């Protein structure tokens, strides 16, 4: 049975093997960080959050984006998504696990992590973030597992899951909203101090998450027996297009406010991102790459003839993912610190160890994702023998 789930076991083992190696390197690097402290990273007194927190922010978005599958299927009875909602939920599980790991990895004293519960502090947004993230993780684990078990057994999932699914919809919005509040509620950090931070976060999340899902579906079609079909991916493509359009629109709004008002503290950060300040221009090539990729992807996704071609769709989704990863996973966090509220123009370049740890966490999340999707495909192979291709054993 297990053998049917994968069209190509060797590629799967190779993939898992690579992930395990990357995880191992990350663990070794993290042990080093535990020993020497965060000094092994590129962070410093001017830029005190870096790659880790940026990945956390980006991945909370990926987790929240599961709602783009749940909502059309459960609220609007959009049947086409029925077969892939579980993919979204499992992606959310892996993404939340990764983002929580990134928080832990970023702590100076991870041994005291439980202080967040022992000395619970409701005035801190981080406290609420812990609550919503753990809640979202549990919701998706329970929903995903129960629905998948139901499918496996050939019975409808128990009735108590429905309310949980409906609850998970606003909950998904909440995780990214609360994460945006971490930034948007800080006086003196003018780059983040904007009321459209949460909408911006959600818009970019609803583009990057579904983009990843489209890519995952194409990979599953190529290497496993599960085929999500053409039409759900087309719908996802449209969702990505409009979410991406909203995301770009929001960034343009920020640019207008910053530059037309002429308030230096607003404008400086955007100058730093796109042209550099006083020779500090580390992010400039990245940000322009992000901008170009976003606009190009939007064009591809809006032109029906291109979007319907799955090669173009895949390329556009990859571009969206990379573009928004740069925007959230690099630009947003670091730029908030440059220049600092007292005008220091800091520098931040991640170190090799920091990158190794970051890749290790990503690999860990992808391993969990692989495991969950393997369970999913196994069940699909069991329950949808018609859709199974190449399982031609007599």
């Amino acid at each position, binding site marked *: 049975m297990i053998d049917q789930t994968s069209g190509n076991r060797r590629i799967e083992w190779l993939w898992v093997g690579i992930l395990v190696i990357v995880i191992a390197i990350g663990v070794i690097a993290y042990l080093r960080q535990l020993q020497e402290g965060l000094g092994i990273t590129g962070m410093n007194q001017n830029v005190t959050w870096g790659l880790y927190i940026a990945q956390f922010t980006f991945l909370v978005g990926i987790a929240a984006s599961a709602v783009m599958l749940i909502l059309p299927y459960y609220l609007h009875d959009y049947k086409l998504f029925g077969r892939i909602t579980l993919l979204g939920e499992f992606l959310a599980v892996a993404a939340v696990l990764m983002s929580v790991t990134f928080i832990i990895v970023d*702590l100076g004293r991870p041994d005291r992590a439980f202080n967040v519960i022992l000395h619970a502090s409701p005035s*801190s947004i981080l406290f609420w973030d812990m609550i919503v993230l753990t809640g979202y993780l549990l919701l998706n684990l329970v929903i995903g597992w129960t629905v998948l078990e139901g499918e496996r057994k050939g019975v409808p999932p128990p009735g108590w899951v429905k309310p949980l699914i409906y609850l998970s919809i606003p909950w998904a919005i909440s995780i990214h909203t609360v994460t945006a509040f971490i930034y948007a509620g800080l006086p003196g950090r003018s780059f983040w101090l904007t009321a459209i931070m949460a909408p911006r976060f959600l818009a970019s999340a609803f583009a990057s998450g579904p983009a990843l899902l489209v890519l995952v579906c194409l990979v599953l079609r190529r290497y496993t027996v599960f085929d999500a079909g053409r039409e759900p991916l087309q719908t996802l493509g449209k969702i990505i297009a409009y979410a991406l359009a909203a995301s770009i629109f929001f960034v343009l709004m920020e640019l207008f406010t910053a530059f037309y008002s002429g308030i230096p503290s607003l404008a400086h950060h955007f100058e730093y991102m796109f042209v550099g300040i006083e020779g500090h221009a580390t992010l400039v090539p990245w940000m322009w790459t992000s901008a170009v990729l976003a606009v190009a992807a939007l064009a591809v996704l809006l032109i029906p003839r291109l979007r319907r071609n799955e090669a173009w769709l895949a390329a556009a989704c990859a571009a969206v993912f990379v573009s928004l990863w740069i925007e959230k996973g690099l630009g947003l966090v670091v730029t908030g610190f440059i220049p600092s509220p007292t005008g220091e123009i800091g520098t931040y370049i991640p170190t090799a160890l920091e990158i190794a740890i970051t890749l290790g966490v990503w690999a860990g999340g992808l391993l969990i994702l692989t495991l969950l999707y393997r369970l999913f495909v196994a069940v699909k192979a069991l329950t949808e023998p018609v859709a199974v291709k190449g399982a031609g054993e007599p």
Partner: protein
Amino acid sequence: MIDTERRRLLKIAGTLILGSMLPIIPCSASSPGRSASAAGAGRWGMVIDPRKCPAGCRDCIDACHAVHNVPHIAGPGNEIRWIRQVPFQNAFPDQGHPYLDAGRRDVPVLALCNHCENPPCVRVCPTKATFRRSDGIVVMDYHRCIGCRFCIAACPYGSRSMNFRDPRPFIRTVNPDYPTRTRGVVEKCNFCEERLAKGMPPACVEACGKRGALLFGDMTDPSSEIRRLMKDRPTIRRRPELGTDPHVFYIVS
């Protein structure tokens, strides 16, 4: 001892019962401070007169760093900040203009924790490791800090520093009466609350001595030296528009 034990158990029980009601308890209520009474102050504050700072004088900084075992780590963006000198336009970004008196523009300004009345760092701390005492001092509990650096992001004055590495090798002379920090926690100026408890003035103020660039006292006492000075001389504060209500004042005339 039995009494302490009972109080502790009551506290545990209380925490369990009131756990769900926590959000409605304002964060300042959990840190009833009484130490202000030790030196008889209602609300500590500081006045700085930058023009009384002799060029190149670092007495206050050295005194503070020596007393509190502040490490000296070389390299840009590495320095641990308790009290430091920053260019005028960095301390007061909205006040710089081309016609500013050169004497003022080029004189570095002392910057330290403002011990805000409404401190964002306290608001964002997820463990109450940073809290505001009733005498206005914003203190850190280094035993509790998890090193998330949310407070650094929240502080509009750059008054907080993270121990990215073990500070001990970087301490020039160790003062055995004051602890060092471990790697992984945030630290900052504490208005020398440990000295105030003994009735001594902050180390920086003491080091400044008769030069009088630094003045420290009770803001609630109209007859205090600091209040009398503020009556005579106009003062400004750093980024007051952010609503943090800083309690470090700068004389501008």
